[in-house]
């Protein structure tokens, strides 16, 4: 329950446990970091796996090739540029459509955009921002490049990774025999 709250709302796990100051400080910090990432890199730094650069579903195809050493199979991704291409991507006749790339080969698709693993840890705020990014991509809003993109990704991914840290700590405190016992543990930083 605490873990779910911590993922849904950054700092929410502490709020459920009654640690209001800690929850608010952490929650405001993480959300601020995420929003600053969007401000620096623009909404298109949200690049969810399964959707291409134009905001349409990425499709996966398989091609069979006959070579001197035998038959070879390889997969390739198609990022449709508009809705008609999404519905009818016109592959070669011999190519086999595997469907939506995120469903057909989720690990490879996520591997194409590994920074999203960090971002999604921020919770539903990431999903909402991704939905807006996909909509704006269809309107022609372009992706940031160079420093803007790097810093935007860094901010949003670090916000997600901090939320993971917070989630683990909140669950640890909630699972401890008593919350007061967990609170009174001597932190490493203070012991040093």
């Amino acid at each position: 329950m605490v873990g779910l709250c911590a993922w849904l709302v950054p700092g929410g796990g502490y709020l459920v446990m009654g640690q209001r100051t800690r929850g608010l400080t952490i929650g405001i910090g993480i959300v601020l970091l995420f929003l600053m990432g969007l401000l620096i890199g623009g909404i298109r730094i949200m690049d969810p796996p399964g959707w291409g650069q134009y905001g349409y579903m990425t499709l996966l195809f398989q091609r069979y090739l006959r070579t001197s050493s035998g038959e070879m199979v390889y997969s390739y991704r198609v990022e449709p540029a508009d809705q008609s291409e999404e519905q009818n991507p016109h592959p070669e006749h011999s190519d086999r459509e595997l469907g939506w790339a995120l469903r057909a080969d989720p690990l490879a698709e996520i591997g194409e955009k590994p920074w999203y693993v960090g971002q999604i840890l921020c919770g539903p705020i990431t999903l909402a921002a991704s939905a807006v990014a996909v909509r704006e991509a269809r309107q022609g809003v372009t992706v940031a490049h160079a420093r803007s993109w790097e810093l935007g990704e860094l901010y949003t991914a670090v916000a997600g990774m901090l939320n993971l840290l917070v989630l683990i700590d909140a669950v640890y405190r909630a699972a401890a025999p008593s919350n007061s016992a967990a609170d009174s543990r001597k932190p490493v930083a203070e012991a040093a």
Partner: protein
Amino acid sequence: MITAPLLEYTPFLYPLPIWERNWAWALLLLPLCAVVAVVYKSIRCSRMSRVPRESLVLFITIVIGMLLAAAALAGLSSLIG
């Protein structure tokens, strides 16, 4: 002269035009370090009253560490170059 991106700039939709000043992007690392320090110390400190001081110390430590690393890398690159 880059004027078109500034005219079209809409916060949160388009990227912040930090390319206008070459040094500006480095300053954007400071808020990141500050939030990381505050969130980390909020987790580690048993009493929240200790967080401002502890996070300030951590923030300064991170910034000094990054400056030293940048200086070392700049020195190394000038030696190689």
